[in-house]
């Protein structure tokens, strides 16, 4: 399929009504739109990664008007591109023509990051702006010589109680005494996207020291008081909120590989042995209280809800001192303090959140003699059994507080599923190894376990649609969630010397005077895929799950559900410590080969299928 053919398929799927002829694109100011999967560059083209084949000058995908459709309880998104052949001031406005019901429009200016790896510009960070937006080309703070196009991300939010109808809006670019308008038609379908997702997209992070670095305007002002200030806790909650609003969740691990616990991640302890106890909950409750009772999410579009999962600070050095490991004092310290925690959570009514006993340490970091994370040497599993015993002893059998024992598993996963059954009940599995265990997700879930898998965000130099593979793959596999292992580390200079964003899906808003994170194009695309997947999965009431998966796989990358799994390699029968990393990579290649080059229209085709089903489902109900 050629670029132009794919661009047409994408335009059709996204409702880009009128493609703009190339000849008409150069002389005057223009306001155009591209689908969310075709990221504009600052010179009026689409970034190379989002083209199917290099074809300089082919701007397929730009349209002069939009016809969109979307389900209620979800977003419809696109890029607006203001093109100006000459430098100068401009105004961009976006508004609905008449009654727009409850539909709301959010406008973001796209920051063009200069990526060091390919020396090119890619849009990713999204700066919220109000309409009308007034600026000039080239955008002063982005500092791109010769910039002729500025991109904007538009989110149209359709609340669940929106009246199904067709709404019209208009975006207008004004500059140099002339204007260019882009009409937008949004058809709101009766279908409502479920609020609960079939894939929980988790965004992981470590500690809080990075907050001081990422928000110098706040941390310098507060100095030593920063880490205990209201501003600090507001920042933490802002990170939870941004991921929640993008149909995801946020994890912050609060301890190091040798057991150092950040003060805001754990209640303060006193005493030792029999006398060890919790002395004060002040920082812990300031941090977590609003997250566990949901009040941190007041005013969000999804409404206040307690966070579903959280790390506990428990590690081999907390709450029991490793000095006493193997002795009665260790058990006493552990059981007494964890019992106090259970009681505190119960008394506060924090019974919706899953509290994760999780070990992140690795022996290669010299803190402890066993691997808590990604066990490779099976002898280490005996430590899990011991902690399972201690946890059981600490908790009342009928506690309404949801404690779970989480393990992030890779090398020894297959054996751990068996040996730690009934002890570990939350599994975060390596993508590679899980790919050859097709029966594992259903088996683990059947026994009541949580099973997710992990990888990391695609970099901005990969096609924009790449990030959609994670929710889809997880759903195809039958797991319940996905972890981006690090989602807040944008590097030392994401603005002008970007590392690509392989560890970031949000950015600090500090540079723009915003005391909190700002989203990214990739996060938005992920959110949209997750919401559409939730809608697709809801059709299992009327259609077999296998049929939905088969069609989604075919449309996404012309595969069958079986293609998403790998054969179990022969070396899997050897002791795990004999496996090599290269053999592991080889073993995961067959399924990965189908996901290496996701074309821009991949998710658009799935989305179109979902919308078709939504319409059909509505007719069936009527």
């Amino acid at each position, binding site marked *: 399929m050629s670029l132009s053919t794919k661009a047409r398929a994408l335009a059709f799927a996204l409702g880009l009504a009128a493609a703009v002829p190339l000849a008409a694109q150069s002389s005057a100011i223009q306001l155009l739109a591209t689908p969310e999967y075709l990221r504009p560059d600052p010179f009026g083209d689409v970034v190379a990664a989002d083209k199917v084949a290099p074809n300089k000058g082919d701007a397929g995908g730009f349209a002069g008007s939009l016809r969109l459709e979307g389900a209620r309880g979800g977003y419809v998104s696109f890029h607006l591109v203001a093109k100006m052949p000459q430098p100068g001031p401009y105004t961009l406005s976006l508004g609905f023509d008449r009654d727009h019901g409850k539909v709301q429009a959010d406008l973001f200016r796209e920051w063009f990051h200069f990526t060091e790896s390919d020396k090119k510009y890619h849009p990713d960070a999204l700066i919220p702006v109000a309409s009308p937006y007034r600026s000039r080309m080239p955008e002063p703070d982005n500092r791109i010589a010769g910039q002729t196009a500025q991109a904007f991300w538009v989110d149209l939010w359709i609340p669940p109680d929106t009246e199904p109808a067709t709404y019209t809006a208009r975006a207008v670019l004004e500059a140099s005494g002339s204007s260019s308008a882009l009409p937008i038609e949004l058809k709101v379908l009766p279908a409502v996207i479920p609020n609960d997702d079939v894939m929980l997209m988790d965004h992981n992070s470590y500690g809080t*020291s990075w907050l001081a670095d990422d928000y110098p305007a706040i941390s310098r002002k507060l100095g030593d008081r920063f880490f205990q200030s209201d501003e600090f806790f507001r920042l933490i909650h802002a990170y939870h909120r941004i991921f929640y609003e993008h149909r995801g969740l946020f994890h912050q691990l609060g301890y190091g590989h040798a057991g150092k616990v950040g003060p805001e*991640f754990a209640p303060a302890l006193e005493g030792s042995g029999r006398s060890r106890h919790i002395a004060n909950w002040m920082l812990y409750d300031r941090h977590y209280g609003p997250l566990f009772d949901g009040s941190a999410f007041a005013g969000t579009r999804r409404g206040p809800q307690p966070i579903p999962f959280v790390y506990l600070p428990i590690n081999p050095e907390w709450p029991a001192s490793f000095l006493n490991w193997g002795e009665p004092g260790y058990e006493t310290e552990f059981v007494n303090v964890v019992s106090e925690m259970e009681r505190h959570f119960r008394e506060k009514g924090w019974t919706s959140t899953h509290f994760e006993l999780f070990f992140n340490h690795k022996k290669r970091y010299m803190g402890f003699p066993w691997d808590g994370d990604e066990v490779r040497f099976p002898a280490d599993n005996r430590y899990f059994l011991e902690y399972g015993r201690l946890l059981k002893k600490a908790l009342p059998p009928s506690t309404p507080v949801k404690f779970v024992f989480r393990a992030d598993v890779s090398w020894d996963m297959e054996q751990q599923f068996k040996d730690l059954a009934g002890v570990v009940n939350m599994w975060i599995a390596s993508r590679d190894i899980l790919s050859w265990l097709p029966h594992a997700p259903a088996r683990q879930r059947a026994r009541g376990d949580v099973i997710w898998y992990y990888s990391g965000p695609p970099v901005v130099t990969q096609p924009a649609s790449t990030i959609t593979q994670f929710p889809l793959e997880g759903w195809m596999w039958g797991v319940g969630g996905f972890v981006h292992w690090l989602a807040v580390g944008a590097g030392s200079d994401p603005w002008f010397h970007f590392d690509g964003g392989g560890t970031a899906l949000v950015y600090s808003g500090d540079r723009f005077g915003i005391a909190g994170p700002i989203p990214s194009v990739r996060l938005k695309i992920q959110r949209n895929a997750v919401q559409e997947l939730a809608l697709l999965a809801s059709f299992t009431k009327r259609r077999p799950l296998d049929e939905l998966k088969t069609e989604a796989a075919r449309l996404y990358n012309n595969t069958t559900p079986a293609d998403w799994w790998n054969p179990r390699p022969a070396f899997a029968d050897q002791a795990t410590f004999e496996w090599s990393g290269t053999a592991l990579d080889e073993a995961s290649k067959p399924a990965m080969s189908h996901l290496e080059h996701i074309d821009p229209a991949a998710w658009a085709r799935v989305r179109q299928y979902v919308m078709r089903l939504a319409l059909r489902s509505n007719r069936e109900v009527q």
Partner: protein
Amino acid sequence: MKALLSIAVLLVPVAAAERDTARELNEVARVATVMVDGDVCQRIVTPRALDYMFKKDPRDPWVDGDNYEVNDKAFITVKKTLIRVSRLAPFPCDVNLWMPIAGHPEKVRVVIRNVNEMSQFWPWGKLYQDMIPQMKQVLETGRRITVTEKPGWVSVLAPVHNSLGDTVALVEAVSQTQLDPHENVK
């Protein structure tokens, strides 16, 4: 002149605090030399892990760390001793264990770290690193050395002997004049 005097006045308490810290850490390190069993230290890291430590494979960049393993009984024995000794100090202090690497005299490795996650020398995540000159001196002379190269940090390095009387390891008794409760929480 006035400005210089002010600076001098400001520096005096810091220098005094560092001296007190160094004195306490020196005592901790002296006791560690007596209490830490060098023979047990030599049994901590397995020969297999040491073999993998220097393997390089461009297709498998984590081959060294993925194969890092320890004898947990030896590790725990020594770690408990290090924790006990660290509690001699009246302030937060870690006592880390460092060892030379047979066949690689220009390299040194940290073997056990502790709960405050402090070290004046360890670049986070390294399995081994270039030999620290002061460590080399301790290993060669068997004498304790105080290092205050990194501003705000005080480390006292002291030898650890085995039953043959060989200096087979060293401890780093370390603290900071101003603790950072958030550093290395990752």
